[in-house]
């Protein structure tokens, strides 16, 4: 049923947009690091005392005296050859750092994205069905409070309750301390994942639940639901037959559009839980002026958010039967 003539144009437009996005994003990030007041050498050394000679070597390593345009062009040039460069703080190729950190974060983001999406949708449907009741108001209040809750604050609260006081979960990190990488079990990883994922899920619920609730109320007061009622449909069956069908597509679209917030939330949550993911790496790279790593992460995260938006667009343009019709009548 796909409208094949539309696909090449769609892909072309999207690729062009992605390239321009990446260009602008990397340039702006580069400028920000370049003009940040942090002296990378001082940040690297901390309180350590070193000789002038040694310091000069370090300055050369960090590229302090290289002109910015040359630095940027060097980086961009090797990027075009597929080389992201070497991370200055970890001293390994940027791609390796990103691969390792992004995998850890992906588990965190994917689980909280799914949980918040499903839970938010169900809560939204339930609230919308019982509009005006105590139950609805409780869900609404819950959502308003969550929207106003800072991510790091909730993370701290959960950490205090479940890790410090109850001791159910580890205090931080994504793997146990003092265990070699080969000996980390799947269960260990899950155990470290639960609290950060829970934080992100709880917060992510609010937006999708409120949206689903509004949308369901709108659908339930539509002409076609009125007609369905006039034909004897009622109760949960009516909501399942007509409500869910009409709410699901926009809700899923919205959930894909929330990739950027998901990424932002991950950075904060990882910071609180010292979860060794892409968020922590971003903060470290930013604070220590690790330009290749920071730009690498920026590019990857831009692609990540772009993919979310792209999926939402695809749902909108190719899956919703109504849009297809409108296009073909133009």
């Amino acid at each position, binding site marked *: 049923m796909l409208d094949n003539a539309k696909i090449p144009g769609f892909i072309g437009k999207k690729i062009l947009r992605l390239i321009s996005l990446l260009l602008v994003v990397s340039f702006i990030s580069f400028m920000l690091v370049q003009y940040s007041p942090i002296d990378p050498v001082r940040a690297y050394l901390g309180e350590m005392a070193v000789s002038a000679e040694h310091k000069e070597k370090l300055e050369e390593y960090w590229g302090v005296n290289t002109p910015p345009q040359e630095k940027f062009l060097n980086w961009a040039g090797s990027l075009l050859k597929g080389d992201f460069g070497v991370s200055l703080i970890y001293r390994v190729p940027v791609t390796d750092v990103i691969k390792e950190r992004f995998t850890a974060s992906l588990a965190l983001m994917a689980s909280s994205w799914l949980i918040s999406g499903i839970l938010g949708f169900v809560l939204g449907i339930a609230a919308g069905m019982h509009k005006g009741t105590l139950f609805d108001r409780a869900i609404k209040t819950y959502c308003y409070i969550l929207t106003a809750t800072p991510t790091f604050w909730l993370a701290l609260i959960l950490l205090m309750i479940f890790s410090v006081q109850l001791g159910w979960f580890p205090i931080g990190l994504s793997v146990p301390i003092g265990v070699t990488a080969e000996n980390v079990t799947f269960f260990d990883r899950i155990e470290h994942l639960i609290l950060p994922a829970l934080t992100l899920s709880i917060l992510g619920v609010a937006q999708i639940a409120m949206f689903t609730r509004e949308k369901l109320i709108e659908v339930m007061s539509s002409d*076609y639901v*009125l007609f*369905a*009622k*006039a034909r*004897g*449909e*009622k109760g949960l069956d009516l909501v399942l037959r007509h409500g869910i069908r009409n709410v699901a597509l926009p809700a899923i679209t919205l959930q894909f559009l929330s990739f950027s917030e998901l990424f932002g939330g991950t950075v904060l949550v990882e910071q609180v839980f010292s979860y060794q993911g892409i968020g922590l790496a971003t903060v470290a790279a930013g604070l220590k002026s690790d330009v290749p790593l920071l730009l690498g992460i920026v590019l990857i995260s831009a692609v990540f958010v772009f993919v979310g938006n792209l999926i939402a667009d695809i749902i909108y343009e190719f899956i919703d039967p109504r849009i297809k019709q409108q296009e073909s009548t133009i």
Partner: protein
Amino acid sequence: MENKTEINAKGKKGTEALLKVEDLSLSFIQYASGLRQTELKVICNLSIQANRGEILAVVGSSGSGKSLLAHAILGILPSNAKLDGKIEYDGQELTQKNKEDLRGKEIALVPQSVTYLDPLMKISNQVIGAVEEGKEGLMKKLQREIFQKYDLKPDVERMFPHELSGGMARRVLVSTAVMSSAKLIIADEPTPGLDEKTLNETLSYFKDMANKGCAVMLITHDIEAALKISDKIAVFYAGTVLEVANVKDFKNDGENLRHPYTRALWNALPQNKFQAIKGHQPMQDEVVDGCIFYERCSKKNELCSKGIPQFKKVNGGVVRCNNVS
């Protein structure tokens, strides 16, 4: 079962009322400024009767509350609506619970436009509606038969509502009512925006239903369309029915019509005198003590401004007017 209805209907055509509405009033509770509640009356003291095997047209201008009458009978009014009066179906009083049980089975609505179909559901699923498990095959067969009868091609089944043309949409909407084998069909503005051919075709579907013994209530503002197929015309004005006339009364200068408003309506048609009368319908929040048509009436006298005129049977029709005998 269908046969039985048919026999019944033939025997009693035009004599037995399937739906009786008596003294129906409908108002909406609204919050005015602050917490003060006001009641907005949209239908008052309305009485009509739909007989088996007949088409009753409820004719009135837009915004006079005609659709709400349909919604009141089906029990699909919004929650702030307040309903008074009596609705009887087949001799049994219609409570909200009864309405919920009967709608879709005994009473069917033919809605006015394609927006009453779920935009994301295929046509066949909507026409068949929600059915009990195990009955899908049977209903599918019935739906195919109906589509064939209404000249809807098999691929319409798989279409979405926005893909239907105007005429197709009309036939699909009518087929939803036929599917249900209901005995009372309420058609809410089924004809606007249709070309001559589609209009006549649509009207013939309702005639068919009446001939099969159904009571059809045709709600419309198109008096010409109503006159083509109806048996009786109820003239709806500002939330109430002023007159129920037989179709044959609408002829010449309308001298057989009982109410001045009905006559004015008839004479306003282009093929008649094309004359409009002055004024407009009273607004819903206006309080009118006497006859609701008082302001615009040419025959008014002092009595008319005091109290609503009672229904009188005149010449085989009923009318709410003091000045007829």
